[in-house]
């Protein structure tokens, strides 16, 4: 079977930063593979190692800059990658769920996988909606926040656990083809080996514009407009202990003794 993994390079923010309009100023930003996608890739690669998947394809929406990050998926074992980007996306502050859905759906329809794995959410915009939206759009089944997947996929069914709140898991059978949104902790993502990293440079990364996948610019018009970004007003009324580590530790020690919780 063929597995497609949706991956994203997310922006990371330094502790101290400044906001420039509706964005964080460039110099305070870093880039990383989305944490949740790392687990999705690992799950797909394990399915391949278990002889269940014949091919693992990583798909991303992002500019050329993100290729280095996306190659991590290839370095960890994905066979090839598809990157969609277009001038039309250049000036969009926030690509909303519908826009991502249109683009990813077009790629999925072209690739025709049996299973799509995506991260529960992206660490930057945290929408946590794309996987399920895509599934509904292309008529796949789905499961959100999956933290365990049985690897036999017998009879075209994925047996999963969905991680609910409060330490409760839901045991669910989902017909394939399906989109599963993968929760952290489902596996232990591997580090890319040096060999993997070298090989990744040779693996194909197809770059496609919207027209190449048959998506009309007008259909990805973002309905949600990001109008402001600001640092949340600090509601902190904490007492900040100042001084050397020795001094602050002693303040804390005193508090713990006062409260009678430590000897």
């Amino acid at each position, binding site marked *: 079977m063929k597995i497609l993994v949706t991956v994203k390079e997310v922006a990371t923010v330094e502790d101290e930063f400044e906001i420039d309009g509706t964005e964080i100023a460039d110099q305070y930003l870093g880039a990383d593979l989305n944490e949740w996608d790392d687990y999705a890739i690992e799950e797909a690669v394990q399915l391949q190692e278990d002889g269940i998947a014949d091919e693992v394809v990583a798909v991303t929406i992002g500019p050329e800059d993100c290729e280095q990050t996306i190659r991590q998926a290839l370095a960890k074992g994905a066979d090839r990658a598809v990157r969609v980007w277009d001038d039309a996306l250049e000036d969009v502050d926030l690509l909303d769920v519908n826009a991502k859905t249109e683009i990813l759906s077009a790629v999925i329809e072209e690739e025709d996988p049996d299973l799509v794995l995506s991260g529960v959410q992206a660490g930057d915009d945290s*929408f946590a909606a794309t996987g399920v*939206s895509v599934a509904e759009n292309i008529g796949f089944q789905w499961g*959100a926040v999956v933290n365990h997947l049985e690897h036999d996929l017998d009879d075209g069914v994925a047996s999963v656990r969905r991680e609910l709140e409060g330490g409760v898991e*839901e045991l669910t*059978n989902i017909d394939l083809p399906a989109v599963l949104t993968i929760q952290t902790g489902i596996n232990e993502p591997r580090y890319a080996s040096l060999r993997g990293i070298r090989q990744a440079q040779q693996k194909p990364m197809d770059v496609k514009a919207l027209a190449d996948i048959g998506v009309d610019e007008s259909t990805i018009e973002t*309905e949600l407009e990001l109008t402001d970004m*600001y640092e949340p007003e600090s509601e902190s009324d904490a007492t900040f202990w100042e001084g050397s580590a020795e001094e602050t*530790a002693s303040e804390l020690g005193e*508090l713990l003794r006062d409260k009678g919780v430590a000897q």
Partner: protein
Amino acid sequence: MTDVLAVADHRRGELRDVSYEIITAGRQLADETGGDLHLAVISGTVDDFADKLNREGVDAIHTVSHGEEFNHDVYTQAVTQLYDELAPQYVLTPNSVNGLDYAPAIANQLDLPVVTDTIDLDNDGETLVATREMYGGKVETTNQLEGDAVVTIRGAEWPAAEGTGDAAIEAFDADIDEDAIGSTVNGFEEVGGGDVDISEADLLVSVGRGIEEEENLDLIRDLADALGATLSSSRPIVDNGWLPKNRQVGQSGKVVTPDVYIAIGISGAVQHVAGMKGSDTIVAINTDPNAPIMDIADYAIVDDLFDVVPELIEEFDE
């Protein structure tokens, strides 16, 4: 179209808190749009749920009796049919794990935009302004949209609705197509039992990703020993397999209410805070003075944990 349709959440026979909070959020929006607040409750003991949900501000409650527990296909079908019937402007759902398992599907099916995990909503009669966080709570953003939308709300951001309402309670005869149901829920399992019950502890020393390496965890163990405290953690520590699941504090872990909670190298993401905000006294040790944990901390040390923790151990080892 100015009405609001809000959907309740329940599990294993109990309405979840957010079901009462969504009434408050929905009422506020309906007041702003000048419409009615409709509530939907789907599956389970719907009549009993409807009685409980009949609080001040609800205009109508639509019950959909079908199956016991949440099934996203049933929810998707029921809510889209209610939308067709009631033509509300906004569909509101909780941003719970289940909410995220059907709200995006409804939005896609109805061809509506979806905005998730909102912490504030404001409507001036035309434009919806939704406030949400990005980058793990480091910034807040406002997002505008015109027209109808599906919106999910974060739990514990709106107060629970109170009082007794006089809503019209009506059974909605949803036409559920069984053939379109592509997943079956077979049951539930509680996880994270084991040797220690962190929810019983008076003093929790809780460690997060700031610890960096598994070996460094020994430092925090030493601290817990020196203080006679119980060791707990944020999620990444458990995800890495460094501590068992029964030590995880948070939305998907345990809710704890110790006398003192020491958060070491923990940023205070909303899902973590959900599990520990009821602690009597919260102390944060973090290099980032703006980390979200500072908003709920009573005491804070802005410093490197690798400098502070050894000093603290020394103090109690003497």
